[in-house]
C-alpha cells in the first residue's frame, strides 16, 4: 500500500503548479511514497517541549534604515522578460 494515492499526487502537483504527465504521476507516487516512509522515522523522536529551529542564527528582525538607494534601471529589470510592454512585464489576462 503506497503512502500516497493518485489523488494526493494530483493535489500536490496542483498546489505546486506542475502539469505532470501520467508517467510522472506514476513515478512520483512510488518514489515520494518511499521517501515519506523513510521520513516516518522522525515521528519516533520525542520532541515534547523542543522549540522548532527556523534559522541556525541567533538573529531576529534585522532592520535597515529606510533610505532611497539606486536600483536596477527599468530596461535592465525587463531585459530577461519573456514578454514586456510599456516598461512592464506582460502576462496573460488574470481575469477573464
Amino acid at each position, binding site marked *: 500500500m503506497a503512502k500516497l494515492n493518485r489523488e494526493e499526487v494530483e493535489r500536490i*502537483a496542483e*498546489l505546486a503548479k506542475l502539469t505532470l504527465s501520467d508517467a510522472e504521476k506514476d513515478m*512520483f507516487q512510488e518514489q515520494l511514497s518511499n521517501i*515519506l516512509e523513510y521520513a516516518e522515522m*522522525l515521528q519516533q523522536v520525542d*520532541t515534547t517541549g523542543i522549540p522548532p529551529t527556523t*534559522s*541556525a542564527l541567533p538573529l531576529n528582525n534585522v532592520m535597515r534604515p529606510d533610505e532611497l538607494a539606486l536600483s536596477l534601471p527599468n530596461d535592465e529589470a525587463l531585459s530577461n522578460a519573456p514578454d514586456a510592454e510599456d516598461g512592464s512585464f506582460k502576462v*496573460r489576462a488574470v481575469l477573464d
Partner: protein
Amino acid sequence: MELYSLTIHEAQEKLRQGEISSVELTESVLERIDAVEAKVGAYISLQPELAVRMAEMADERRAVGEDRPLLGIPLGIKDTIITHGVPTTAASKILDGFVPPFDATAIDRLRQAGAVFVGKTNCDEFAMGSSTEYSAFHPTRNPRNLNCVPGGSSGGSAAAVGAGEALGSLGSDTGGSVRLPASFCGVVGLKPTYGRVSRYGLIAFGSSLDQIGPITKDVEDAAILLNAIAGHDARDSTSLNAPVPNYVDEIKQGDGLKGIKVGIPQEYFTEGMEPGVAQTVRAAIDHLADLGAEPVEVSLPNTGYGIPAYYIVATAEASANLSRYDGVRFGLRQDGGDMWNTFSQTREAGFGPEVKRRIMLGTYALSAGYYDAYYLQAQKVRTLLRQDFERAFEKVDVMVSPVAPMVAFEINAKVDDPLQMYLTDVLTVSLNLAGVCGISIPCGFSEGMPVGLQIIGPALGESAILRTAYQYEQTTDWHKQPAEL
C-alpha cells in the same frame, strides 16, 4: 611544471615576482580546458575572451603597482551564482538564456580582489543532487576516473579544480554540495558557517541552509578565497555581522596541533560505510594525534535523523523558493492559453525530474494536514541536532569524520533511486541544519579513488578547522597527487 597546475598561492608568488603574467597563467588554463574539457565536462559555459581581457587588465593593474589577494587568478564559478552579463542557468532549462543584470556579492568581492573568471561550472539542477547527473545540460565526469561521478551538487567546480581547468572555484553547499564533490575529486572544499558569506545573488535552494564556499587545491588557497568572500552584507539580512580574521595568517598559528582536542563522533562511522573509507579516515586521525592533537570520543546521538529532517526542511524551503519560476520576469515561458496554465506548463517544461520531485515533496510537507507531522517535526528535530553539536563543542575544539560513507560511485549507479542518492549526504547534512562549518581535505585513497576527511567546527570556527586541515596537509602529500588525464 605547467602553469595551470599551480596553486593560487604559488601562482600569486610568481605573479608578484614578475616570473609570469596573468595572461600566461589564464592562457595555460584555457589550453588545459581545450585539452581535457571534452572528457570531463566541468563547465556549462566558458568565457575565454572575457577571461583573457580580465587577465590583461590584471596585468595592467599590477604594472602600475597594484597588488590584491587574487589579482590575475583564473577561477571557475558554480552556475548557481549570479554573474553580471554572463549567462547563469543553475543547470536548469528554466533559466536557459538568462543573463543576470547584477552580480552576487561573492562575485563582486572576487572582482574587487582582482580575480579572473574562466566560466560557469556544471552542477545538479538548482544544486539538487549529489552526483551532478541531474544537470539539465550534461553530466560531469570525475577527473580521477571518468567512469565515476564527481559528486554533487558542485561537481563541475570540484572537477574543474581537480583537472587543472581552474586554479580554484566557488561552489555552494546546502547539504554537502561543496564537501562531497571535493572529497570525491580529491580537492579541498569548505562550507562556511551559515551567515559567514553573503547569499545575495546565490540562486536560492534552501535559504536557511545555503552557503557559498571555496573549492581549491590546498588549504591555504581555501583560506585565501574565504578571506575574499566572507563578511557582512547589508543585502543579505542573514549574513553575520562578525569580524573576518585573516584566515591565511590564522592557519599558520600555533605549535602543530598541540593542545587541540579533536572529537570523533562515533555515529559518523556508520555500519554501511565502505571499509576502505573508515580505515583511511582512522589513519588520518592517528596522524592528527601524532601532530599533538588529543582525540576524544564524542556522541552526536540524533545523527540518524539528519537525512529525513534535512530532506523535509530543504525541500519545503525549495518549494517556496522555486515558486518564483513562473515565466513572467525571466527564464522560460511556455504559453498555456491562460495565466494559470502558463505557470504550470512553464514549470512542467522547465524543471527536470529531481527538481519536480523535491518541489512535490516540499509542497506535501507544507500542506494542510501534514505541516505539523513533517515540517514542524523536522524543525524540532533540527533543534536536537543543533544541541548535539553544541554539547560536543563544549568538550572539543573540532570534530573529524569521513565526508561520505563511500568513494565516488559509477555514473548511473544511483540516478534512478532518489533515496539511495539522498543517503550519500548522511555525514554532511547535519552541519547545514546546525549552521556550523566544515571542510573536506584529501586524506588518502580507497579502491583507487580519493577519500575526504571532514573537519567540523562550531559556528565561526573556520580558523580552527582550517588550522587543523593545514597542519595535516603540511605533513602529508595527498593534495600533491593530481589526477592523470
